[in-house]
């Protein structure tokens, strides 16, 4: 691990500053935090930006550089800047209450830290709702060494979800009425349509099943009504990136949205994903990819024709879209494809999060269920069976189970399991799934423990749409490419170069992602941030985090200060990320080498989920003293 040692040396240098840094490459940067006007073409509102604009500037650093960044707060409230994805001393991480107190109005804070990595990142305020209000910018770090791919030109493509309401008002409205912004709810007409297509009984049973849980299958985006922007421009304002036919263009996608996931494509062009969250991956050619909130993906494209190409991003809930253009001259406008129809969540997405669910009567205790198909079992999570109407009775799992849509699910006998007759689930297709898995034994009826998504290669499944093991089987959220081609999955990501030696995790920490939708309280292990103790880690550990998503929403989990090594079953080649998206009804694992002393934030990156409690402080105990941040005062008044 010589690379790691080198990093440590740099971090050490940061504390001393001055004399040491003069030897290295050093740069000084200035940012002002300013009130700005957000103008999307459809609405204007006040907001917050950097150097007088939102998005703020692209900060260009070089790997190995020691940066000094002077941040002047021109707001009348405290602000902060978090350098998203950067590895740095914790007191430079920019989270008020964890890294430092924040930057009071009128004051200047000087950040000093070494740049120990390269790639695409971003920065944003970590105070209140300044980020959704516009306080974000991007970071591009040039590598010291030659990259394993080549390109002629590059653009940052920063996606955001500008909302006509400011963050404080949105939070208040969500607390007052959690579906305040959901304008995709199922209506009388949807019911009539369902009744016509599936029969009145089925339609009623389906409504009753959701109503029983007091949840909505349309609850994919709890904040709608936003205007998506690319580099601050709406579809009408049409951000344009120029190319010469045949040039290879690197597009650095950053999702700086408060709440919106995007499905991104460039009709007519294959995209080659070369980097995820700032770390190079083995190139994956795709037609479309989903970018979670706060993730970055770098893709290479090679437009050969002298024409305009649309960069088209649809929100995951299909409530809004934005088109930008790749063009050979200014003024060209690519056609924006039509927004696809929204999908509905299914019972598979509900996972186990059911109130009134009664496992007690199920005599699953001593049974050993061998599953030929680990995924099917995992994704079922018994969620689909634990419906209101589902009557497990004596717990005979081999019974025919009545599904919410009124049809029956046969062959759930978990032993040998014949899934071929299981046509009851709306989109589950077990047919032809010949998965040679080792048997999974279920100690209890609730969850399949230890089922790593990663360990299975689903590539060869004969499914209708290629299944993505990072979604619950039968999930309404499973993406598919608009052109029927390849849609990127976490399963496709392989680290180009592991940052760490591969080793067994020293311990596992389970984090159940929980929430109370009606009260708009989001939490981890059922406890919101205000009431929670910090997560304590020991320097030198390798911790395996187990995310169990018990909510119906997708959560992009972000650990500050240390890398999140996503378990896709590739062992030492598991991709290295800073955001791990956890779809509803799934369990996802990531591992972290605990190599950064101090205290850090760990949270869902959906702004209103983080703020309402899906947030933790992580304390890393032990480790070299000199690593744990500089003690120099960075604050000076005036400015």
């Amino acid at each position, binding site marked *: 691990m010589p690379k790691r040692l080198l990093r440590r040396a740099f971090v050490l240098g940061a504390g001393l500053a001055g004399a040491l840094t003069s030897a290295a490459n050093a740069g000084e940067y200035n940012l002002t935090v300013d009130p700005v006007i957000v103008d999307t073409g459809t609405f204007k509102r006040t907001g917050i930006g950097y150097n007088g604009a939102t998005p703020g500037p692209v900060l260009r650093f070089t790997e190995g550089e020691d940066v000094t960044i002077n941040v002047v707060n021109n707001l009348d409230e405290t602000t902060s800047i978090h350098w998203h994805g950067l590895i740095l001393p914790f007191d430079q991480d920019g989270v008020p209450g964890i890294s430092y107190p924040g930057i009071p109005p009128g004051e200047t804070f000087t950040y000093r830290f070494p740049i120990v990595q390269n790639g695409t990142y971003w920065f944003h305020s970590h105070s209140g709702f300044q980020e959704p209000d516009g306080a974000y910018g991007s970071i591009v770090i040039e590598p010291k060494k030659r990259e394993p791919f080549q390109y002629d030109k590059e653009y940052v493509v920063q996606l955001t979800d500008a909302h006509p309401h400011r963050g404080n008002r949105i*939070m*208040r*409205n969500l*607390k*007052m*009425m959690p579906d*305040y912004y959901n*304008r*995709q*709810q*199922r*209506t*009388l*007409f949807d019911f009539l349509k369902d009744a016509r297509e599936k029969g009145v009984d089925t339609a009623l049973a389906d409504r*009753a099943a959701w*109503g*029983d849980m*007091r949840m909505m299958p349309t609850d994919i985006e709890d904040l709608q009504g936003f205007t998506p922007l690319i580099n601050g421009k709406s579809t009408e304002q049409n951000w344009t990136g120029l190319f010469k036919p045949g040039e290879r263009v690197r597009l650095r996608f950053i999702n700086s949205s408060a709440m919106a996931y995007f499905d991104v494509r460039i009709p007519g062009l294959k995209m080659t994903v070369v980097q995820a969250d700032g770390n190079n991956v083995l190139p994956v050619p795709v037609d479309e990819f989903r970018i979670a909130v706060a993730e970055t993906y770098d893709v290479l494209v090679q437009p050969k024709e002298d024409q305009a190409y649309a960069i088209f991003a649809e929100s995951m809930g299909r409530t809004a879209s934005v088109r930008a253009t790749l063009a050979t001259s200014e003024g060209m406008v690519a056609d924006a494809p039509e927004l696809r129809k929204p999908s509905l969540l299914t019972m598979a997405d509900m996972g186990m999060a059911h*109130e009134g669910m009664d496992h007690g009567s199920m005599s699953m205790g001593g049974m050993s269920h061998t599953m030929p198909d680990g995924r099917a079992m995992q994704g079922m999570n018994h969620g689909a069976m634990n419906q209101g109407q589902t009557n497990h009775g004596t717990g005979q799992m081999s019974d025919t189970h009545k599904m919410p849509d009124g049809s029956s699910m046969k062959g759930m006998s978990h032993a040998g399991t014949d899934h071929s007759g299981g046509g009851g689930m709306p989109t589950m297709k077990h047919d032809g799934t010949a998965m040679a898995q080792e048997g999974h034994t279920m100690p209890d009826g609730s969850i399949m423990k230890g089922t790593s998504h990663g360990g299975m290669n689903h590539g060869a499944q004969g499914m209708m749409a290629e299944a993505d093991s990072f979604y619950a089987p039968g999930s309404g959220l499973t993406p598919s490419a608009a052109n029927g081609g390849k849609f990127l999955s976490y399963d496709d990501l392989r680290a180009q170069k592991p940052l760490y030696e591969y080793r067994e995790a020293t311990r596992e920490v389970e984090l159940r992602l929980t929430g*109370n939708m*009606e*009260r708009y*309280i989001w939490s981890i292990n059922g406890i*919101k941030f*205000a009431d929670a103790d910090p997560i304590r880690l020991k320097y030198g550990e390798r911790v395996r985090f187990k995310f169990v998503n018990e909510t119906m929403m997708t959560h992009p989990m972000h650990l500050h200060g240390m890398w999140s090594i996503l378990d896709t079953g590739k062992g030492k080649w598991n991709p290295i990320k800073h955001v791990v998206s956890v779809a509803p009804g799934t369990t996802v694992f990531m591992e972290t080498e605990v190599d950064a002393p101090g205290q850090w934030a760990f949270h869902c990156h959906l702004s209103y989920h983080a*703020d*309402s409690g899906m947030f933790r402080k992580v304390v890393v105990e032990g480790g070299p003293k000199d690593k744990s941040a500089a003690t120099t005062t960075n604050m000076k008044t005036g400015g």
Partner: protein
Amino acid sequence: MKIRIASLAVFAAILSDSPASAEQWFWGVQAEQLEWRSGEGSPAYAWDLDAFAGTDEYKFVVRSEAEYGTNANAFETLENQLRLQVPVSTFFDAVAGVRYDSPDGGPRRTYGVLGLKGLAKQWFEVDADLYLSEYPSARFEIEYEGLITNQIIFTPSIELDLPLADDEATGRAAFGPKLEIGGRLSYDLLDRAIAPYVGVHWERTLGESGRLVRDEGEDDDVVSFVVGFRVMF
């Protein structure tokens, strides 16, 4: 109106005295009914509104319900409540508070309030209150928002007010309930802030209470057409 202002002042005092904590404060105002009623009875303005402020753990609510008759230029009913809501389950809050009634020409009454408020299965919004005094009563309200489209909403509601003791001065007899059934069709005009609606409101006074109402020369069975705004901000 004086009473409303007084209760707001109490409410403000509680707010300002609350110690600083990590809990965030939220507030909001919701008027489910703010309407003009016209029909078999005397025409009236009526409202049913809640203003709240609080955290995830505690919510202080000022609730006001009134009917102001335009013939008599007087409040036929005027109820103001100061309520504290505390979560007791995923979907329900327990309620404790005080209620003060001060209709024009009627007796003033003060009650202690104990109740439950929340969202029942199948999306029924439920309010169940017990009003405690020497003239105790119970009230049960259910409301449902039926989406015709995502903007056009039909809201049926039922309210049952059950006196548990005789209170002739207010025209109520023990176990003679008053039943109010409404149906309102609204359109979300501006966000969810303002939604104009039209609807029907039916009030029926039953049992011995019905007789008391008739003795007063009033109708125990009144159907009104209503037009108004639902307000939320």
